[in-house]
């Protein structure tokens, strides 16, 4: 073998960057660090922060956004966007409430609620993938359409009768896993963690995940190499809507009532969480861990401001700063790379 040719064994294990470099270049790492720092500062500033009660509330609150951010992640990786998740959550919640209120068993209500979400996601996906309409416009239209349908179905009334299995249903989203006096894990958090593991697995270890990244990296190349581009695009919008449906089931259970305003404005919080966690709106990048950690940061900021006695009016300012900081970090990394 000639000297300038490396053996297979040499080459297979080589990576261009060391593990340390890759961690430092990872946005989710920096966000995790920011959360740790905020938490330490808050523990020092406020006795109320590191209490099981506060942590219970924080982790429950962030789970709804976290679950939807997981669904948003593949959409954004394919260079798409789903503005309709808040409205899908609302519609799905209203339908679920109506079905349960009509005396149907829990599983029927949940199936129809999630089915509604999947249907709406399927419409989004079909229009984007097969009719080739712009995702921003299609899901903006759906934001309006699904919200309006939620109002139509609910006849603008609050729903709080959940039928014969109401107790079990409310416990699903409002309950917790009791691990002794001080350790209670809210059910939505458990759901989010399980879903995060599923998304991590799907994105990293299945051809589907590979194709999602490929479509976002170079759609034309993906098509040429035999990736079912249209089906992949359709599937990410269905999955995103399904996550909004799951979040609705849990949220309604926790709130104990549904109004047609459920989920209003959540699309922006969800997209913010996803982007803060390192997803790139231009496509090709994003992780399950990033989606979760972005949701954690947003809720921790909110909680920290409340405990620090800062007016809640400032909340949006801090979240906004982190969004801009996130894209700034991204820019910086690309700059160094170039």
């Amino acid at each position, binding site marked *: 073998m000639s000297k300038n040719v490396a053996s297979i064994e040499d080459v297979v294990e080589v990576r*261009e960057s060391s593990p340390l470099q890759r961690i430092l270049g990872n946005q989710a790492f920096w966000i995790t660090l920011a959360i740790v720092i905020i938490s330490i500062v808050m523990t020092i500033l406020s006795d109320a922060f590191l209490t099981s009660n506060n942590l219970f509330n924080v982790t429950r609150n962030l789970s709804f956004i976290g679950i939807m951010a997981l669904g948003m992640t593949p959409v954004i990786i394919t260079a798409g966007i789903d503005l309709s998740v808040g409205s899908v959550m609302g519609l799905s919640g209203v339908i679920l409430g109506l079905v349960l209120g009509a005396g149907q068993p829990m599983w029927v209500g949940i199936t129809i609620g999630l089915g509604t979400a999947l249907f709406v996601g399927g419409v989004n996906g079909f229009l984007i993938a097969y009719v080739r309409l712009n995702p921003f416009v299609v899901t903006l239209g759906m934001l309006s359409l699904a919200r309006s349908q939620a109002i139509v179905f609910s006849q603008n009334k609050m729903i709080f009768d959940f039928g014969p299995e109401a107790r079990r249903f409310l416990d699903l989203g409002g309950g917790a896993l009791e691990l002794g006096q001080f350790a209670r894990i809210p059910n939505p958090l458990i759901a989010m963690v399980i879903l995060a593991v599923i998304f991590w697995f799907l994105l990293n270890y299945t051809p589907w995940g590979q194709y999602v990244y490929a479509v976002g*990296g170079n759609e034309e190349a993906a098509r040429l190499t035999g990736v079912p581009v249209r089906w992949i695009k359709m599937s990410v919008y269905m999955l995103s809507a399904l996550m909004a449906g799951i979040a609705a089931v849990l949220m309604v259970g926790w709130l104990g009532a549904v109004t047609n305003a459920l989920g209003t404005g959540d699309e922006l919080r969800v997209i913010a969480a996803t982007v803060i966690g390192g997803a790139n709106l231009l496509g090709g990048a994003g992780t399950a861990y990033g989606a979760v950690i972005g949701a954690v940061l947003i809720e921790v900021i909110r909680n920290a401001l409340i405990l620090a006695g800062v007016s809640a009016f400032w909340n949006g300012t801090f979240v906004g700063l982190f969004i801009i900081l996130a894209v700034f970090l991204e820019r910086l990394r690309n700059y160094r790379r170039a």
Partner: protein
Amino acid sequence: MALLELQSITKNFGAIHALVGVDLELNPGQVLGLMGDNGAGKSTLVKIVAGNFPASDGAIRLEGEEVHFTKPVDARKKGIEVVYQDLALCNNLTAAANIFLGREMKREFGPIKILNYQAMFNRAAGLFKELKSETRPRDVVRQMSGGQRQAVAIARTRLSQAKIVLMDEPTAAISVRQVAEVLDLIRKLRDQGMAIILISHRMPDVFAVCDRIMVLRRGQKVADKAISDSSPEEVTGLITGAIESS
């Protein structure tokens, strides 16, 4: 019976006549050099054979049987592999992921199939070694040099036993040493009985490996002859139009 037969292939993009009645026969073990000026229709011809888009008119036959490709995978299933001019790579994926895109190696656990990264990395490293390319399977394409990218695009054609390999300027961005490797590879494929179409603007490459040359000018075939019956001067004349046809 020819391995690949094109019969009066025509392609119009609106008012642009990219290809006008092009005929071609290609046999196993043949290396055809396809030359022509920018915009002559070379890539268009490749893309039609590769199932990228259909011809406006004309027929394609593989081993005597007429084929109608509706998507690139159809052509690949019939043993046609392509190196695209723009390489068709995903910048955000690793070299190995790009090579295996659309035909990943999987490990099965009952009904669940998961990606077998180690097997793909090993196979990719083997392919790069065969190409004598210093490309690491785990590197992300975004960080790669032009030559490494080209190696990835070429390695992709080696995954399955192809019958026909179409190479659209595979030597455009690479060093002299690597050009020699690609030309060697082409000879090796030819000796295995594959048919190859090599598109190149580099006259020496074409004359080094091809046994036939075809020239397109403004979508029309103006020459198709044995390389031994031609010369670089004649081909240049054919490309520019100084020589009408031959």
